């Protein structure tokens, strides 16, 4: 078995790893493609509830008081100046002027058999309410997008740490042989950019593979360098030539595992070239499925394609797919500082695809062991920013939801205060959410460690608590 501990410093040679592994080059080359040289020491630590996860990242901060956390007092006190402790003002000046209460812009109703509250902002998601486990008492670190986005993905606002997906790939390895284990669809270059799917000090093989990038239409997005610039007989002859040269070089150094690993990686790349385009291409999907996701040239078309691709990647054995609804700006998508009604624009783009993904996974029998996680880096304030028509960032209390993967369906956990500002009952810190997600996937967040710079690091640093009440 591989050790999970790689000595601090440098892996100068894979030979040492091979010697420790006690297995032939095949296993290492195999791992080298995506799973990596250092899979978890002994498989999952805990009973697994889920095998894979899709994270629907709503960048910028969806307002909890306009979506999943109804607060009648916001309506009854609408317009009043009240003494909220505004976190941004406090962080910068230590003082907080009174703020104007702002009522929700969308009407809340009880939905489904569970009676879960969802507002009219998300009519389609409202239709899957009975599948959702809404956490209304999440709180996190970071008041600005950069720090909070990094905290969401890496569990640290500033320190350079591996991303959640990299930890998963490191801890669980991959389930397939032709595709990476961790994919991020259309990630942003901003607010931490590649660090949000990076490995930091974990071995580079656990790096998330981006498909497309923010701003590039989903239909034009692909895995880099997947398509050969040449086709036909010349390309075929070239593959034969490379095999011949490789064989000659291997014959000159019999038993050189590193050299053989390079050859095997090349063979795997060739398999990716043949398999991945089929996974990325939705041509085989029915008209009904395309319509379900809103892939019709309308406002939901782009995110619909991303959500559909997430399902296809999961079916092909990708462990963790992050679907990004974002852009490259400093104030991404849902960041409505001055214009709350604009939330409707983003809802139109995402509501149908998100609900479709959950429905589609469910009817295919995949929802039981797939976690769908929907959420932002933080929520929004219950009061108007600078007495205007928008809301500022609020890391102190906000909502995310989880569906499938053994989470408790049709359930709302925890509560914020009367105004939806601070999480107050059964609070769940972002570290706790990370610990809980890892636990659902069979990993103990206190044992998923990697030694770097003289100490063992964790996704949850020295914090985190599994919130077992979220499980069914």
């Amino acid at each position, binding site marked *: 078995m591989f050790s999970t501990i790689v000595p601090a*410093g440098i*892996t100068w040679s894979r030979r040492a790893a091979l010697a420790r592994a006690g297995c032939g080059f095949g296993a290492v080359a195999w791992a080298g493609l995506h799973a990596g040289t250092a899979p978890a020491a002994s498989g999952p630590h805990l009973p697994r509830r889920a095998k894979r996860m899709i994270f629907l990242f709503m960048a910028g901060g969806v307002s909890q008081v306009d979506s999943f956390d109804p607060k009648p007092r916001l309506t009854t006190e609408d317009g009043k100046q009240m003494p909220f402790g505004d976190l941004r003002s406090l962080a910068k000046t230590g003082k907080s002027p009174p703020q104007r209460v702002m009522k929700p812009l969308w009407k809340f109703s009880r939905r489904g058999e569970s009676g879960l509250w969802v507002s009219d902002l998300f009519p389609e998601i409202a239709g899957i309410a009975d599948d959702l486990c809404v956490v209304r008492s999440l709180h996190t670190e970071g008041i*600005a997008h950069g720090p909070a986005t990094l905290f969401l993905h890496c569990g640290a606002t500033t320190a350079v740490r591996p991303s959640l997906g990299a930890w998963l790939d490191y801890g669980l390895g991959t389930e397939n042989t032709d595709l990476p284990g961790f994919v991020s669809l259309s990630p942003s270059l901003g607010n*931490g950019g590649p*660090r949000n799917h990076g490995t930091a000090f974990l071995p580079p093989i656990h790096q998330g593979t981006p498909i497309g990038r923010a701003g590039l239409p989903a239909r034009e997005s692909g895995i880099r360098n997947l398509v050969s610039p040449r086709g036909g007989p010349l390309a075929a002859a*070239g593959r034969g030539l490379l095999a011949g040269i*490789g064989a000659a070089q291997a014959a000159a150094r019999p038993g050189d595992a590193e050299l053989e690993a390079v050859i095997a990686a090349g063979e795997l790349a060739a398999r990716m070239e043949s398999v991945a385009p089929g996974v990325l291409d939705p041509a085989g999907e029915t008209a009904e499925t395309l319509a379900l996701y809103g892939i019709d040239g309308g406002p939901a078309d782009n995110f619909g394609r991303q959500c559909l691709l997430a399902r296809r990647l999961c079916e092909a054995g990708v462990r963790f797919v992050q679907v990004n609804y974002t852009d490259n700006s400093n104030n991404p998508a849902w960041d409505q500082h001055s214009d709350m009604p604009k939330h409707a624009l983003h809802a139109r783009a995402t509501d149908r695809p998100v609900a479709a993904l959950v429905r589609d996974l469910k009817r295919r029998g995949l929802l039981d062991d797939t976690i769908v996680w929907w959420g932002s880096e933080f929520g929004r304030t219950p009061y108007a920013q600078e007495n205007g028509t928008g809301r500022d960032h609020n890391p102190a209390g906000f909502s995310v939801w989880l569906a499938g993967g053994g989470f408790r369906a049709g359930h709302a956990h925890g509560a914020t205060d009367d105004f939806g500002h601070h999480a*107050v009952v059964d609070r769940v810190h972002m570290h706790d959410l990370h610990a809980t997600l890892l636990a659902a996937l069979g990993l103990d967040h206190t044992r998923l460690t990697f030694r770097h710079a003289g100490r063992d690091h964790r996704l949850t640093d020295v914090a985190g608590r599994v919130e077992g009440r979220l499980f069914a």
Partner: protein
Amino acid sequence: MAVTGAWWSGSATVAGAIAGGVLSLFPGSFPLAFAAESEPAVVDPGFTESIAPLLAARCLGCHAADEEISGGLRLDLRDGWAQGGDSGPAIVPGEPEQSLLVRAIRWEAGAPQMPPDGKLAPEEIELVEAWVRRGAHDPRGGSVDPRPRLLPGQAEGMTAAEGRRFWSVAPLADPTTPDVADPTWNRTPIDRFIRARLDAAGVRPQAEAAPEVLVRRISEDLIGLPPTPEESDAFVAQHARDADGAVADLVDHLLADPAFGERFGRHWLDLARFAESSGGGRTLLFKDAWRYRDWVIAAVNADLPYDRFVVPQLAGDLLAAEATDPAAVGADLVASGFLALGPTNYEEQEKAQLRFDIIDEQLETIGRTFLGLSIGCCRCHDHPSDPLSQADYYGLAGIFASTRTLFNETDNVARWMTRPLPEPAEIASRRAVIDARVALLTAERTKVKKEIADAPSGAATATPAMERLVEIEAELGRLGGELPPRPTAMAVEDHTTPGDTAIRVRGVEKNRGRVVPRGLPEVFATHLAIPAGSSGRMELAAWIGSAESALPRRVIVNRVWGWLLGRGIVPTVDNFGASGEPPSHPELLDWLARRFAEQGSRLKPLVREIVLSRTYRQAVAPPSEPDRGLWSGALRRRLDAEQIRDGLLAAAGRLDRTVGGLSIVGAGEIDANDTAAQTIEYGYVFDDVRRSVYTPAFRNRRPVLFEAFDFADINASSGGRQASTVAVQALFLANDPFVVEACRAVAARVRAEAVRDDERLDRAFRLLVGRQPSAGERSAAVDFLVRAGSEPEAWAVLCQSIVSSPDFRFLD
């Protein structure tokens, strides 16, 4: 205390408890523990009836012995809250408004929100407030462990005294070069140290590598580029006559090549976490960072002694203040940019936290780079394994807390410091004249504008004042364009009021502990004499650079050894602590450190000494011979990302060897805080053909090749590259337009430079892997040419197949 015990009736319960015992917690029947003191304890019945059950139900899950003791605060003893945790005493008896515990349960701004799993009911909060107001009577005794362990079972690290005897910190030994049985094998004293160990282990060294292998190895190691076939031929011919002379001449030639500075400078830039944008949250363009990069390359090429290389990077601004030569002033200021290059989150809203995060990043980088120690651990607690305490950390932190790295730090998005650079006298005097004129005009403009504003309404539309304003604006506009913007550098400066800083308990910025004097960690047993009014950076830098400082000397010579041989004598090149690996050849390490000092602490003689050694010149051992860590052969290594890119461009005849200068297109004219600066990073097209060290080093956007081939983490100091084997590398070499185009250019060159197919084949292999094709490779290539024809595109495919083959990426 004036309260009497007349109304107290809890004696039965109290009498049954044992002083100092741990409470078992049953709300309603609360067994109390109290100190066996002479005075009878006095208890407010409110405590037993309401406060104790409340504590038990809502607080003691985290704030009691046998738990992790969150924040260091115990609430199961009177002394627990009286002494308090990380944030100081939790309760001030009689003063609820000054009691942190009360503020915390009210969830007041600026206080922790307790309990974290849900606020107490208002009536419960009132109970606590009333109890505190009445004097917070608490009968529970027992004493708090004065030094609670942070984590249960955590090992104690080394003491400073033990640390001084640890191999990496102990004074440099003065080892004698060992005698060996076969002195003819030796070329430099290094070989005696290596051979003695090999002989003792009964292991024979490898023979000298074949000359065409050796010339490729030395060239890649020293300048990061392959030799041309002609350079290779010349070396092979000389080597046949005089092997030692050929190696010596080649090394001297390459050390004099500016490309040596580009190669070894790149190693240093990895350590300096060099980048041209901040990355992190809102990435900002470091448009002046290239000057630091160029300073490093120039310093390596000039072969500055190590102290003169180290001091400017840590205290160049202080040197500049003393210097008179404008060139020296500029160079020193630029070098101090080392401290400002970190991946800082300039939009962090808690500005005290931001300042501290920067200090922490500087300490971590300095620790790893110069000392091979992870000092960062001690931000929160004493080092678990190394002889470093939290006080040591804050002694160093005070030096950097006395240094200004941030500019406009209270802005929503803060900025790093920039300092103007000296200009040639002629430009400087013109600028002075212009600046004076601009100041004059600006003042006049203010006056004229006021005149216009104060004029009674209805005055003539074109008053003399308005005409004058137009003239002023026109002249200001013209003056603004007369000279290019004043060149600036990322630099730091000493704070106007430097001083010591306080320990931050558990690393939390707001939790101030005792103030510790600035200075070196105790383990180094050296007092820094920091003059009043100075930060202490100069004194710290001088100590790090000094030949008398054993640890930093061992670290740097080990790095040079590792850069040349593929593994350090201490394999964990960035970790010289107890959790790192010990040196395989401790005597050699110390001998090298002493030798380094004898030769002026210069890099080039050290490199020469190592490369001329038999040890370095050995062939790679066959896979059947295990590596025992004794240097019984050279290690087979990978080319790094830059060598792959630069080598391909060189083979294609396209490499632009221009040295230095700003290389980010469009960055010269832009303000770094402008959002357009991000557009430059996000939209950047990496299409230059300069050496990779000059490729824009954005943190949020890396060239595909660098990502695929394990470029160092651009966010942290790193002394070595990983070597992964992943499918994306194969996909890159097979399909990336950069490789495809480069291989077409190599093919065109091969076809132009040779006529017959077998000659072209030889040429292609020599350009790309530095050797003739083997019989097996030749036969595969001939088969291919028969099937694919000898058209240009077939040759491009052939060249690309060589590039995709394992040997292209390995260095023997």
